[in-house]
């Protein structure tokens, strides 16, 4: 490996589950501040890639570097502490708690040297949470139990929790899945607005090509565990292989 200015870099990643190849010689580097979307049909290896970056799965071979440090063998907690946060396709939020309390937990986990005798609901914690709430337009849901909230709001909260710790890289696993078509764009707008505040690198998995076009500069296309295209958005979406295997816009060929 050579030192370079990639913030995150995967080198020669292979991973298989039994007979299924989920990652085949993945090499990709991502620079600070990039907005990258990962596309590919179900089972193409996008989520596996995300799970390997965040330490939930270990690659069979290959290494992952973050800020030129090898993070391949680290667990999700340590990787999160180093500055890579993620959201989930199915929001992983604390169901019996309110939106406010969920963010309070997220805030608490991001702080060091906790006092065991100081109330978590302190003034400075409250102020920060209120700020996060307005950034994600969640104010009206602040004190409602999250198990009762609509899908889009749950997604927003899930992302907001990942952002509380002010990560360098944020991975979003299908931020608009499971949300109605008419809700998708307002939701993505809210997310984009909330993320634009910091100098943040965002990698997201997305199936909706309009969203991919509107919200990312760079696209990485996966097919059967391999990267088949990696370039700026327009080029990738016009790529023949991508059209055939990913976006499904196959040109009708004369026979």
């Amino acid at each position, binding site marked *: 490996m050579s030192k370079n200015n990639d913030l995150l870099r995967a080198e020669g990643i292979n991973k298989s589950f039994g007979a299924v190849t989920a990652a085949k010689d993945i090499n990709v580097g991502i620079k600070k501040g990039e907005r990258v979307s990962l596309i590919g049909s179900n089972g193409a290896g996008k989520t596996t890639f995300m799970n390997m970056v965040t330490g939930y799965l270990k690659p069979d071979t290959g290494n992952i570097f973050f800020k030129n440090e090898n993070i391949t063998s680290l*667990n999700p*907690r340590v990787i999160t502490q180093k500055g890579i*946060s993620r959201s989930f396709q199915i929001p992983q939020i604390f*169901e019996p708690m309110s939106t406010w309390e969920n963010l309070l*937990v997220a805030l608490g986990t991001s702080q060091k040297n*906790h006092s065991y*005798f*100081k109330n978590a609901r302190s003034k400075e914690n409250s102020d920060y949470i209120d700020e996060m709430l307005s950034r994600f337009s969640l104010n009206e849901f602040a004190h409602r139990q999250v198990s009762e909230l609509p899908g889009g709001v749950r997604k927003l909260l899930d992302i907001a*929790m990942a952002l509380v710790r002010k990560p360098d890289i944020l991975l979003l696993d299908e931020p608009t899945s499971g949300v109605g078509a008419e809700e998708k764009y307002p939701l993505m707008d809210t997310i984009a607005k909330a993320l634009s505040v910091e100098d943040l690198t965002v990698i997201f998995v997305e199936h909706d090509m309009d969203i991919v076009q509107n919200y990312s500069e760079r696209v990485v296309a996966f097919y059967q565990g391999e990267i088949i295209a990696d370039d700026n958005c327009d080029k990738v979406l016009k790529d023949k292989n991508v059209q055939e295997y990913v976006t499904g816009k196959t040109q009708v060929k004369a026979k």
Partner: protein
Amino acid sequence: MSPKLINNIFFQSIFLMSLLIVVGIFIPNWLVFVITKAIAYGLVGLGIITLMRGGLVSFGQGFVFGIGGYTAGLLGTQAGLTDAILLLFISFIFTGFVGLIIAPLLARYRDIFFAMLSLAFSMVLYGILIKIDAIGGSDGFVLPESTYFGIKPSPEYADYMLYVVSIIMTGIVSIIIKYYYDSTPGLIALAVRENELRVEYLGSSAFNVAVLNFTIAAGLGGMGGALNGIALGHIDPEFTYWTTSGEFVFISILAGYLSVPAVFLAALLLELVRSFSGRYFPDTWQLILGVFLILSIIFIPSGIGSFFKKFFDKFKNK
């Protein structure tokens, strides 16, 4: 009274403690004894609800109950230490320390496996204790009478003295525990209960939460065991038996994990049911206990604590 005062934990505790101490003068001796035993059991229960807040239930708290009891007993018989306050305190610290040592072994496991491994620990201890004849084997041994700051109370006041001491010490411990519950680590423990994976992905360690909670639960269980031993004046391996552990789990399920005082109320209920059915239906007290247990799980699934919480939330919203 102002809602703020009612919600103040120091006010609540001091009010409750003084009330109990005054009431103790007027109630019969057997009830003083029953309440003291309920406090002992409640302390163990408080440990289990601390674990429950982090998503774990130990089915083997007899382990720490026994260690606490035997610590107090052996210090009394072997080292001549009879000061009840010191014995309770040392048992708390020592058992907490034992808990800290075995916690990393247990903290890797969840659900039924955690429950069963903790049970296995208690049964191993039981197996050892019944074999050591030097400390009475399965008969156990008698503890020397307790003293308080060097003074031995006359027999008719001995129970009351222990009652007062246990109320004050338990009150202090409960306040500390309540502070922990409301702190940031206490909140993270509740999050671990709901979704451990997410807590790890937020950057906190579920393992550390489990270790801390188990250590606290061990300390509390040890103090409860010491208090129970001192109150009975006798200790035997039954302290560590699985049926004893079952009673502790029952107390914590009956109380729920939402409220600290609820756990002592649940323990008192158990002790009252036990002593009444023991007195009036000596052959069927297990049957009554079992039916009581099933009914309370059916009708109060989230525990007595849920009523407490509703009550105090009323004041908060004003």
